[in-house]
Structures are given as C-alpha cells and as structure tokens.
C-alpha cells in the first residue's frame, strides 16, 4: 500500500486515491491533426524508475495530484497539485518530498 502526501489533506492511504495516468502526456489542441491525437491517446512509455503521473484524491479533496513515483520501488519523491493555480494557492507548488520515501536505512 503506497501512501501519498496530498497537499490539501496530508499523508493518506493508497485506497483514497485513483490512478489517473501518465502526467507527461501533452494533449494537443482539439483541432490538432489526427497523428497528434493518436500519439497522445494511444502511445505510452513504460518506464522503469521514476514516473510522473496523475493521482486523484477521490476519497479526499478530489484534487488531481502530480506525483513522481518510482515504478520499481513505489518510492514517491514529489507530490503537487496538478492545477497550477491551486498549486500556487496552497504554496506547495515546489517539489514536495515525503519523509517516508527519503528516510533511508542505515
């Protein structure tokens, strides 16, 4: 069970969140060419290691969060609100690192 530090709600369990996909995808303009849409909708990287992705705090504030998660270890190194205006408003736009993930072992 991974735990995500929501900028609104604090450190919460996996079960409160839903995964909402790759945050690195740039969706094109609505009238962009078919090729651009094809690429955005159907093509995905499958990285081993850090991955920038969206999680929605559906069992909490409802926010979409941009999370950097290691796909091998589940280590989370960054959490911020996906909406830039809301991120700025909460003053937590900068990279936020959870204590769990960085504690390190002796």
């Amino acid at each position, binding site marked *: 069970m*991974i735990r995500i530090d929501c900028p609104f709600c604090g450190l919460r369990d996996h079960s409160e969140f839903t995964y909402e996909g790759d945050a690195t995808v740039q*969706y094109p303009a609505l*009238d962009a060419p*078919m090729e651009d*849409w094809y690429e*955005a909708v159907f093509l995905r990287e499958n990285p081993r290691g850090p991955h920038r992705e969206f999680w929605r705090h559906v069992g909490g504030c409802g926010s979409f969060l941009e999370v950097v998660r290691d796909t091998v270890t589940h280590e989370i190194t960054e959490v911020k609100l*996906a909406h830039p205006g809301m991120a700025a408003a909460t003053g937590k736009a900068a990279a936020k690192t959870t*204590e*769990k993930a960085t504690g390190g*072992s002796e």
Partner: protein
Amino acid sequence: MSGFRLSRGGRIDRAKRLAFEWDGSQHYGYQGDTLASALLANGERILGRSFKYHRPRGVMSAGVEESGALVHLWRGARRIPNAKATQVELIQGLEAFGQNAWPNVRIDVGAVNSLMGRFFGAGFYYKTFMGVLGRQTWEWMFFEKIIRRAAGMGSASKEPDPDHYEIVNDHCDVAVIGSGPAGLAAAETAAQAGLDVVLIEQDFALGGSLLSNVADTVEGDTVEDWQAGRLAGLSSKGGRVWNRTTAFGLYDHGVVGCLERVTDHMVDPHHAIPRERMRILRARRVIMATGALERPIAFGDNDRPGVMLGHAVRTYAERFGVAAGRRIVYAACNDEAYDDAASVAEKGLEVTLLDPREVVPDHLAAMADEAGVRLLKGYVPVEAHGRRGVTGLMIGRHLGGGKARSEREIGCDTIAVSGGWNPAVHLLSHRGVRPVWSDRHLAFLPGDAGREPIHVAGSAAGVPDTEGAALSGRAVAEAALRALGKGGAKSRKAPAACPAGETQPIYEVRVKAPKLKSFVDPQNDVTADDVRLAEREGYVSVEHLKRYTTLGMSTDQGKIGNVIGMALMAEATGKTIPETGTTTFRPPYTPISMGAVAGTERGTHWRPTRRTPMHAAHEKLGGKFVDAGAWKRSWYYPKTGENLTTASMREARIVRDTVGMVDVSTLGKIQVQGPDAAEFLNRVYSNAFAKLPVGKARYGLMLRVDGVVFDDGTTWRLSETEFFMTTTTANAGPVMLHLANLLQTWWPDLRVHISSVSDHWGGVAVAGPKARDVLMDAFEGIDFADQAFPFMGVREGMLKVAGGGTVPARVARLSFSGERAWEVFCPADYCPAMWETLLRKVQAAGGVPYGLEALDILRVEKGHVTARELDGRTTATDCALGGMESKKKSYIGSVLKEREHLTRRDRPTLVGLRPVTEGEQMKAGSILCAQGEVVGDGLGWVSSIADSPVMGERIGLGFVRGGLTQWDGKTILAESPVDGKSVEVKVVSPHFFDPDGGRMHG
C-alpha cells in the same frame, strides 16, 4: 508412547490443568501449553498424515514452520483446517482432530498411496494426466477429482463463518517485530527516546528465544529479570505490546500487515468481540527482530514421528516441561546443537550427539561431557527406523559432503535434527530485497534494505547469540532514531553478522545402498529424489523447481525445505547455492483467514446500498426493486397476480393512455458553474452548447477522447453562468471524473467549477397525454401551457405540496418515453413530499407510478438508446445519432472519431427488430445472422428487447452490419447459441412508435 511431562520446569502453570479432546478422547494439559506440547506430554505420536503418501507424521517443530502436526480444530461451522498444533494455544475444552486420513490418523486407508510412491514423483500429475491420458479436458477433470481426494490437506467448513472480524487502521513511529532479545532491546530503546513504539509478537508468550534459554543471562541479568525490565521500560513510555499478533506482511511505505488473534484463546468470549483483528499499521520505521528458523537434514525416512528439529526438542523441555522422548539422538552439523543437546541431557534424558566431524573443538566436547551427552564423532544419521514412530536410527560414518557408509543401528525414540539456522528474512523479502548467501552462516542473510524504512536485528540479521542480539537491537533502534531525526546521542554500532559457531555444509545424507526416501519438504511430500528428477527434466531454476515439485508451496511456504532444496539443486547442476538462486517470499508469512481480510465488509456491508429519497414511498406501494450498481431502483409495482412482464406492460400502456410517474433520482447530476461554463460544455459535448439560451435544456452526447460514445444526458441552462447536467445512472462517477480531469489538468485556464449534486437532488418524470393536466396547477410560478412551456424548456418554481406549504423545484420539459413529459427535481429531503403530492394528482388522472422495466419498454418503442447501446464500442453514427454531432466545432473525440475503422461503411448500426412469426420472442444478446450464414459473429447483435403493449409483440433494438440501408424490411436470424434458439426477425426502423414525435411535442 514416548513423550511425557517432566516433573518440573517449563513456563506453564501446573496449577491450571486443562481438559481437551484429541480425536475423540479426553486429554489434559496445562495453562501455557500449546496443543503440540500437550499432545507430546500425553505420549501422542501420530498427529497427521502426509499430503501425498499419507505417511504418519508427528510434531516436527515448536513453531510456525511445523509440517507434521497439522490438525483440524473444532466442529461444525467453526472447523479450522490445517492448524499447526505448535501454534495453537491450549484452552479448556479445545477440540482437535487428525486430518487427511480415514478413518483416523493412526489407521489410514489412504496410506496405500505410499506403496505407489514411484508413481507420485515430481510432475507425475502433469505428465500422466495432462499428457498421455488427459488429452481431453474432461479426462483431466475426471482424474483431477480423484487425485485431489487422495492427496490433500484439511477441509474447511462449508457453512458460513459464524464469527466476525474487524480491520483496524493504526499508526506508530517504530514497529518492532519479534519479542526476543533483539526485539525487546530495540523496543525499549526506541520508547525511551520518546517514540511511539509497537512491539509485535506472534506467540501468546513474549520472549522469543529467551523462552527456551532460561539459564542464560543477558546484559548481566537473569533472562526473566532482563525481559521484565525491558517490558517495564517500554510500557512506562506508553509503548504498546501486541502478542498473539502476526506481522504477516511488509508493504510499501512502512505499512505492516498484522493479524491479531483476539478470542481463540478464550473459552467463552463475549459475542461482541471479533475473533480476529486485521491491523493495518503505518509505521515510520520497522525493526525486524524476527529470529531464525532451524532447518533439518535430509536422510532416510526423516519424516517418521519422533524426528524433530533439534532446538524444538529443547524448547519442549525448557518452555513446556515436556520430554519429547526418553532416548534422544541429536543428529547435527552445527555447533549450536551442543548447547541444545546439553540442555536436554540436563533434564535427565539420555542424549547421544552425532557430529560429522572426526575432530571436535575441545570446548564443545567438554560441554557434551559435562552434561552427560554421549558424543559420536564422525557420524551422520542414515535412516530412521520405526514405521509408526522412531524406534532406532541407522548411523553411518561420514565420508565427507554428506556421503556416508551405514554402520549400525542405535536405539532411540527421538531424533533431534539440526542442519543449521536460516534467518527469518521473509518480511524483508516482501519488500523485494533479495537475501544474500553467507558462506560463514551457510544461510541467506537479509540483503541491504536500501531506501526501505526497515532495519534488521538479532538472529534475523545473523547475530544469533543472546548478548549480541540485545546489543544489535539497541543499535538498530538508534539507527531508526537517527532516521527519524531523533539522533544526536552517542549511538552504538550494530554488531557484525557472526554465526554462533561452525556449521558443516551437510544438507542430505546419502549412502550407496539402500535407496533412501529422504524428505526435503515433508509437508508437501517432496523428496531429495524429486529435486534431482526435476533437474534431470530441465527444471533447474528455483522458481521452476517449486512449481514442478511443489517444494515450498504448502502452508509453511518453504520454511523447512527451501534451503535444502536449493542446495540439492546446486549440487545436481554443479553450481553454488547463490548461483542457483535466492528464495522469494511473499506475504503472508503465515496463513491468515479470509474472514480477517474481509473484516466487516461482508454481506450488505460489502458496499454501500444507495436508495433514492423516495425509496420508502416505493416500498409502501409494494414496488419491487432491481440492483443497478449500488442503487436500488424501483422496478415495477405488481398488482395481485402480476409478474414482472404483466405489471410492466400494464404500467407502460397506462403511460401511453393517460399518465405515469417514475423515480429518476439515480441519474447523475452535476452543477457546472462559472463564466466559462458554456465554453467548457461546448468542448465536452459533441453537439453545440455555446448558444443554448437560459431557460432551455439540450440533449447532449459526450464522446471519449478516442471518439467512441461515452455518455448522454440533458443539460439545463439555469443562468448565463450556471448549468445543471444529468448523466446516465451508471456514468455519474466516470463523467464527474472526466470533467474534473479536463478542468484540473487539460484546461486549468477555464473558469469553471463543477460539483456532484447527484445526492442533493431527487427527481421524477411525469409522462403521458395527461401529464400537463397533472402538473398544471401543481406549482407556483410555472405556467405549463404549451406556448409558455415549450418542449426542452426549463423553469424553476415552487411545488405546492399536499397538506400545505411549498418546496423548491426545477422542471424541464423532456421526454424519454416519447410522451408529453416533464422531469421535476427537488432537493432530496423534499422528495417524499414531492412524490406524495404528484402521485395523488397522477392517480386522480387515472395514472400510475411506473418502474424501470416500463421505462425501458417505452424507450425501446421510441428507439432511444441506453447503456445497452452506448456500450463503449459504438460511435454516434452507429447509434443513429451522428446527425447531432457538430461539424462546425472541435470537441473531445472529434478528431479520433474519424479514424478509418470507426468510419467504415460496414460497421453494425442501430436497427429495430420485429419477429416474423407472431408470438416468437428473441433474446437480448442474440447474434444476428443472415439466413443460411449462421457463422462466427454474424452481422451484429440484439442489444435490447421489450414486450411492447403498443406493438403487441416483443420488439428489439440491435446493431447490424450495413444497417437499415442494406437490410430494411429483410428477414434475418436472431441466434442464441446458449440455448440453441433461433428466431426469424424482420429489420425495421428503430422508431417503432410515433416516429415523427408528435406526441411529445404536441
């Protein structure tokens, strides 16, 4: 009879004698016993029958690794199979039974399997029954049933579990797993530094290895005083101690899965107390002080009752005051066994110790001599004698590397085996940290935990001596403190992993002849020969070895056999053990009950039940409900003698004749507000919304980004900046998610706010030729005259409720039924009053309430689509809705809906279907085929059916390749391969009734 109760000693309360039942006869034990220790004390030897060969088995260990004494507990609904007698706390009245045997474990007819041992070797099932014989699936299934009956474990009760369970969410700074010397020292150290500590112990007694090392001293204190001191230091700082609790798994981010056995040790627990409690513990740091597990040595018939692990024999003597036998042979290849043998000999038992070395270090020889242990140097165990229990041991001269020459039999009733110690690295393995082989320990040690918040202490970390373990516990606790920013104080360095003595690399003893049956994993009846057979057949990877032989698959999950199995595979392939592989352990560490996993989420608590605000009114009318997702939707309101079909047809007919009303509260409802709301909806819907006037509603069709239809519904413009959107019942959540995603991640610049108001508003649709009459005088401030309230108009006003007063309402003139109709929504709390008020008026006009079934009939008659048609595969054009889509704007899905495959002319498109022969009834889901071409997936499918009162027959909607253009008026077949039914149907327009819409506009 061989085991007996020693006259003194043991951490049992001899003043508390407990009666219990074993296979129908009464026995006695003491408070503090396990079922295994009590059975041993009563001289019981055969406690189980093995998995495949039904060989007699007795107690093999004193803990979680038990592979012999697997028993049933209790009777009836509370029957528990595969309980390890070594872990069952003895209580007054306990009922225990042998399992996997008939009529009982002492006389077992199934033992004939052991005569067929050569047929039951590794991979036998697959090769024989799936290979030569089992070419047909039915053959495999036939044989499998027989095999499953012959080979097996215990059987669970088929009755519902009468107990209840709960799940508790918990938190702490440091979770310490294991209450031996390392765990106690670590827990106290962390608690004294001001941290919130939980000490977790699977046993009912605290102390771990200290329980069987009563004569030791720790940090200058006696064991008992030292243990009491650490616990006092822990509890004085508020530390929690959870005994009878297994930390069965370590998960991401410091989450520890714990299972607490709450009532199993209580004779008559209060019914309100859960039997077990799943504790999901979120720990900032985890300290594993999980100890080590002894492993045996494989030799001939090493599974006979009376063959036990060496340290277990000592544990029974010291902790339980029970002698496993009178004449005990220690067959060991490590120095630690000397201490165990000496301790057992000091209880007055006859002990012989076999050491494979010709030359033994002086201090060990002296220890044996002092304790009266007869030491046989240069010997190894070859074969246990005694079919129903050990009567002797053939010993052999050790020739090196486990090879031996049989020499003579020595008489004994117990063989105490010690092949070395495996640190219990399981929990770290759950985190994906691979264990590392140590040539000094001849065992896997925990690997580097990396960035996991986990520390390992004591014998789990390869520091087995008591003093070292305590120091190790303190040192890792200080490391945990530093990681939590509580460092600063001088901290100790953890002692390096160092074995307590030498271990000889002997995993199996072999002689030239005879051929021995040597068990590697006794619980699954896997022998040393099975491992070699697997190697010869190419299953050399440990993962393949496991699946081919079932080594390590049983309830002990390889705790006894994994390392030996790997050592034998390494030898067979000419590799080293680390080259052969490492073991991967997965949760749970020991079996957990399904009841605890479910907790309280069973029955109706599995998920919420959603009732509309008018649910009670439907019940009062005798309405029936149907489950739609979590919703209970009103389905039909039967009169005496009516069933679903006749009631729903009557309701539908009355709607067309006069008027009806239906609860539509389950529709998703979303409030869309903000200056850019119209622009937002214009991008989201495929039809135009930007210019929708205030006071008007519009049917909207939403596509997914890939161009397939997502959802439909109506959206009402309440003001310049406010819209009220409805979605289908099933898509209320997904649409909300979709819109939130777009606003938060795609178009954060749009000034739009959305709120789900599905639960805040309830609604009814009033439909039928007399709908206007019903509503005309019902509201203050709403005029229902045709010109004043045209089709798709939206009004807000006050509903005058029966009995006086008014309630706020939103009304739109919409029609799903094809009749003149309005949807009326009220805040949820006012809905019962709204229902009551409107129902009186409807009934006065000769109308009725109708349910989902009649609603479905009415919409099929009109060719209106629902989720049955919008099934995630169809485009708007497929559903004859293509004309609605705007060609002047771009919207979600507008680009990808033009993909080649989605625009092919031969896609199945929406049609109506009528039976050719009067009275014939097609089924929903039938495959539509051209006559004479009943092959493959045919031309399409039947998506919906309805027994239509206005058409006087069963009609259907479906999708056909080529659609109406190609098939209008032609006859095709609706094939139902499930029951072999075939119905001739004519393809017609999907708009069966009132195709020009005169009734709803009029």
